[in-house]
């Protein structure tokens, strides 16, 4: 089921939280929502889940508008809010029963669904405990279980792995990936590595506006128009190597890495490529080229560039 966000705007008083954002998420796609605090991620998610209405624009889930058809939309969405609110005084199993009933899960299937969710989310040992007796990580699993219980077509997860330990994070990521093969998943996170590991596509928003949209590698390329390679050259004079590299036609800048490693970072001029030239230079001079690796910019740097300069 497709989610399409069309020119969405929402302001709180004079402050614009979301400023005409548009994007589309297709079935079988996992989209990561990135942005600094207060960028409008949570607001956008609250609008998609029909908790808030936009000031302008619309969101369509499977062609149904959140404004004119909220109840039909809500039936298809599983939502884990950022604060993971739960009825803390209820036992896990009763809580899941309540959510299943209210989500229109047929009576005959409720038991099976609860059983499945308890297994999938690793709650078998805790199902009779009251929710407020569980640790934060287990509460997060309950939140995830309630979002998944009606097998929704669209899954909206606001920071799904917060509070989980590393093992649980890996499990939940695998789970999200599995679900994402058939369903539409939108998740937000502060952890860039997580988004990179789980998501097919990344959306970066800043101050309510969409500033980037693409896969992790395309974002890196987009932010980095000049090629950088790290080379290690041995059997030569450090000073001479440095000068020869700098003299190459396509090279803009050579960075010295610590002296003893004989390594250099070579940045090419825009839209040029110096890898062949470096190789030929080494052959000519009789140096041994022991390493040549393209330096990829980290997603963190891309993120910083996009969200600080704007």
């Amino acid at each position, binding site marked *: 089921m497709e989610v399409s966000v069309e020119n969405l705007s929402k302001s709180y008083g004079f402050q614009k939280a979301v400023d005409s954002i548009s994007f589309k998420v297709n079935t079988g796609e996992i989209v990561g929502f990135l942005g600094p605090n207060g960028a409008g991620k949570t607001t956008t998610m*609250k609008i998609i*889940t*029909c*908790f*808030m*209405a*936009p*000031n302008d624009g619309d969101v369509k889930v499977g062609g149904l508008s959140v*404004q004119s058809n*909220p*109840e*039909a939309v*809500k*039936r298809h*969405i599983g*939502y884990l*809010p950022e*604060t993971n*609110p*739960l*009825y*803390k*005084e*209820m036992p896990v199993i*009763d809580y899941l029963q*309540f*959510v299943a*009933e*209210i*989500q*229109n899960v047929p009576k005959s299937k409720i038991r099976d669904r609860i059983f499945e969710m308890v297994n999938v989310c690793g709650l078998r040992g805790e199902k009779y405990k009251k929710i407020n007796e569980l640790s934060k990580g287990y509460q997060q699993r309950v939140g995830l279980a*309630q979002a998944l219980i009606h097998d929704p077509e669209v899954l909206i997860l606001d920071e799904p792995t917060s509070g989980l330990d590393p093992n649980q994070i890996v499990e939940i990521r695998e789970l999200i990936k599995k679900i994402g093969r058939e369903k539409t998943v939108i998740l937000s996170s502060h952890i860039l590595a997580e988004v990179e590991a789980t998501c097919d596509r990344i959306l970066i928003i800043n101050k309510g506006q969409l500033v980037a949209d693409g896969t992790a590698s395309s974002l890196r390329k987009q932010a980095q128009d000049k090629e950088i390679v790290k080379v290690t050259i041995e059997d030569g004079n450090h000073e001479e190597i440095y000068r020869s590299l700098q003299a190459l036609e396509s090279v803009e800048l050579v960075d010295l890495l610590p002296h003893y490693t004989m390594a250099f970072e070579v940045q090419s001029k825009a839209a040029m490529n110096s890898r062949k030239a470096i190789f030929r230079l080494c052959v000519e001079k009789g140096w041994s080229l022991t390493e040549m690796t393209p330096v990829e910019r980290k997603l963190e740097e891309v993120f910083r560039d996009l969200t600080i300069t704007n």
Partner: protein
Amino acid sequence: MNKIWIITKRELRSFFDSLMAYVMIVLFLGFSGFFTWIFGSDIFLVGQASLQSFFGISFWTLFFFIPAITMGLLAEEQKSGTIELLMTKPVSDWQIIAGKFMAALLLICITLALTLPYYFTVANIGKVDHSAVLMGYLGLLFMSASYISIGLFTSSITSNQIVAFLAALFIGIFFHLIFGLVSMSSGGWFASLLGNLSLATHYESMARGVIDSKDILYFLSIIFAGLLGTELVLSRRHASN
């Protein structure tokens, strides 16, 4: 309807899980029992086989207890954020409101049902006017429903339960006492207007065993106004401006 019942069931369970229901029932039975049978103008002093004294004392106990029941219904959900959970499920605001209203009303029904032994006892002692007792209970239920709807409204405007409780008492005391008092001490159309607005007037006529469509209409209007106010507050959240 089904959705309303799901929400009612959950609320009712949480009343019993949080001991609120037991405290309410014990205190109510304690107060009303004490003043009906043991102290003050009790049944033996009056010397009539009627439940007038019970209806008189319930009129006040319920007035104080109902805001305590309703104060958490929405305020607590807004404080803990579970309102977001509820409102992103496929239920309408009206279903949420109706479900919570029904839960509080059912708790009152259970409490009042536990006072039925009073009726059987009195019926054994002497000749009881059965229809008057029935009307008295009906009056209590209508009064409770009115205060529940006011309490639900005050619970929707805040995330603080104490504020919700006090606001419900504040609004309630006008209907319960003040309109009646002012009406008595003034005259003309103003007095009759306030007299008609006073809940006590309508309750007393029912508790005496007189049924009048005017009284029923009065209670239904308060219930409707309270629920409508709650809906307006809740829908502000997804208003598009």
